[in-house]
């Protein structure tokens, strides 16, 4: 993993189309601004993991499960 140290207000470019900026540091939390093309999806870890888990569950639904209705 690439590790960089940044101060509030500083940013990072990822490729030539994604810009991440540290907006604010307060009480152990970091506020981050992300500028990216609309084709890039950006999700919080926990949200992404939850949806991924539910999608995997959903992909295992079988024909017989229709009888559960």
């Amino acid at each position: 993993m690439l590790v960089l140290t940044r101060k509030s207000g500083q940013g990072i470019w990822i490729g030539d189309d994604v810009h991440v900026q540290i907006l604010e540091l307060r009480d152990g939390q970091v506020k981050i601004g992300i500028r990216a093309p609309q084709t890039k999806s950006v999700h919080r870890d926990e949200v992404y993991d939850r949806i991924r888990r539910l999608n995997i569950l959903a992909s295992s639904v079988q024909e017989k499960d229709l009888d559960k209705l």
Partner: protein
Amino acid sequence: MMEVATTRFGTVAVAEDEVWTFPQGLVGFEHLKRYVLLDSRKGASLQWLQALEDPSVAFLVCDPKVFLPSVEIRLPEGPAPLEPEAGKDFRKLKILTLLYVDRAEGKLHVNVHAPLLLDPGSRKGIQAVTDAPGATVSLPLQKS
């Protein structure tokens, strides 16, 4: 017409103009981009979104307006990475929600927090993730 192998339905004939393309795939299934909607044996209100690139992957989907009329599907506030024209007018989009089986309860649930948005014009779709922190993820499926 192309012949598509599926594990649930055997070989299915699909016309090219029936294909839905998800340029980003679904979350966790980013490698699968092309799908077709097939009516389930319960009728057109419950359909299977069958992946064309993996015979074993199909998602049971429903129109949330039919099964969960009282539930408001919230679309993401952020940019919808569809065609700009479709993104401007959500009313033109077809919205589908994924179903999964809660194994503990043995019931079908609807995931209302990651709906599929399909643009009939471009036949492109995305899975929108509405990421309200702490929001509950699913509701048991009710018949309307």
